[in-house]
């Protein structure tokens, strides 16, 4: 394995670790920091893939990742929680060790799912697809077990990070037009989420989504 390859593997592992850290984290500020770190790891791995495969458009998407996921979005989230004055500890639906165990189960599931694919991947990194899938599922789990609106959104963004990692590291990056579109969607989505926080608080006096159970299944 080449050095670049090894570094990408290391970053992949780091991404997974951050996904778990997010799952175990109770503080919302730390969650935002972790999200920024995840974006950083993502950008670094994209840049390395760009360097070693010589695809200039990946440099561009690495830059985009830094600008959006390390800079803009965490900043927006910081501003939001400042404005909303929400720095509470997050309540979880299931206690954290149990969540972790479910998380391990998900990772094993993801790896099992990805193994037959990784076997045939003669490409740059064979491991990354499984790790990307695992971090997507972990973010999904985080969205499920968190009760407040902001952590759910952070979970959504982390899921997007996992997907982006799959796109850049497992497949050399999607065509540029797609990447741009995805980035735009995420950005617009974050802003809409931000607007929604205010609406929700205005209507429910809280960002706790337990209040939003009026529309029952019936």
């Amino acid at each position, binding site marked *: 394995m080449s050095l670049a390859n090894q570094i990408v593997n290391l970053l992949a592992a780091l991404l997974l670790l951050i996904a*778990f850290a997010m799952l175990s984290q109770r503080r919302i500020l730390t969650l935002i920091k972790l999200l920024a770190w995840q974006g950083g790891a993502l950008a670094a791995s994209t840049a390395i893939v760009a360097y070693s495969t010589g695809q200039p458009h990946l440099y561009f998407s690495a830059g985009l990742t830094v600008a959006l996921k390390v800079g803009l979005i965490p900043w927006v989230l910081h501003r939001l929680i400042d404005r909303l004055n929400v720095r509470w500890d997050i309540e979880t639906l299931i206690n954290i060790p149990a969540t972790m165990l479910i998380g391990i189960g998900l990772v094993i599931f993801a790896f099992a799912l990805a193994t037959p694919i990784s076997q045939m991947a003669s490409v740059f990194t064979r491991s990354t697809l*499984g790790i990307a899938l695992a971090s997507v599922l972990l973010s999904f789990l985080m969205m499920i077990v968190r009760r407040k609106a902001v952590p759910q959104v952070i979970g959504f963004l982390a899921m997007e990070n996992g997907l982006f990692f799959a796109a850049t590291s497992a497949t050399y990056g999607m065509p540029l037009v797609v990447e741009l579109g995805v980035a735009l969607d995420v950005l617009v989505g974050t802003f809409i989420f931000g607007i929604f926080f205010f609406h929700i608080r205005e209507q429910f006096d809280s960002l706790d989504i337990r209040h939003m159970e009026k529309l029952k299944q019936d």
Partner: protein
Amino acid sequence: MNLSAGIAFQVLQSVFVVLAAPLLMGWVNQCRAWLQNRTAPSVLLPYWTLAKLFHKDAVIARDASPLFRLTPYVLFGCMWLAAGIVPVLATGLPFAPAADIIALVGVFALARVFSALAAMDIGTSFGGLGARREMLIGFLAEPAMLMTLFTAAFISGSTQLTTIVDTLAHRAFAIYPSLAFAGAAFLMVLLAENARIPIDNPTTHLELTMVHEAMILEYSARHLALIEWAVAIKLFAYMTIGIALFMPWGIAAAGDWSALPLAIAALLAKLALAGAALALLETLLAKLRLFLAPEFLSAAFLLAVLGMLTHFLVQA
């Protein structure tokens, strides 16, 4: 390798470990004092303490059984044996094949059982309390420890610690994400097993929080000295295991006298670094409530399992 040289190495290492362990303890304490803006005690303070304790008369509770008297020796013996197994200075020592990582964990477990039994032996409430807490931490820490070691074992294809170190020390440079996970997990286990902050505080006797100190409250004089010494050797052994697994460069082969000075120098440098890092960690972290200890250790277990999974997926 001829046998006599091997035995010489083994003896040398064993003696070195026993003599150097209190020094490491002193170094950690000194670093911690510096970091906390206190006047640092001498590095040699643990030696003086041991010497002082050995010169005192032992006081033993009337109801104490022979187990209580026996335990300090068992503890000391176990730790010494563990330190003898770990390739500290050289690989391929004569004792090394006799024990692999599973046996190593077993030796630590044996020591744990004895200290818990001895703590309950007197029948004081503190002893029972400490023993229960120690077992709680132990049963969570052990699987994490085993998983960590297994990750390294998978990489080198053997559970022999000396083979693992040989493989890891003499490979071409490669980044192992799985080892990074395992390293983080190992660090957490090390903190928990050696009664350091954030799980236990080695310097406090506050009944609400103490774990290890509660167990040895009834010991005095030479028994206490042996236990303190064993504790120092345990920390030393854990650190050398960590060094052996995660930064094994510079270790000598048994019988290779020329490599020995370099190996000792490398080891001392690494230990000094590790001790300072430990002190830094202890200064930065706050002690966790006891009820959060399972969470801390399950995180360690999780990391270790992740490391193993990563090993299988990444093949690295």
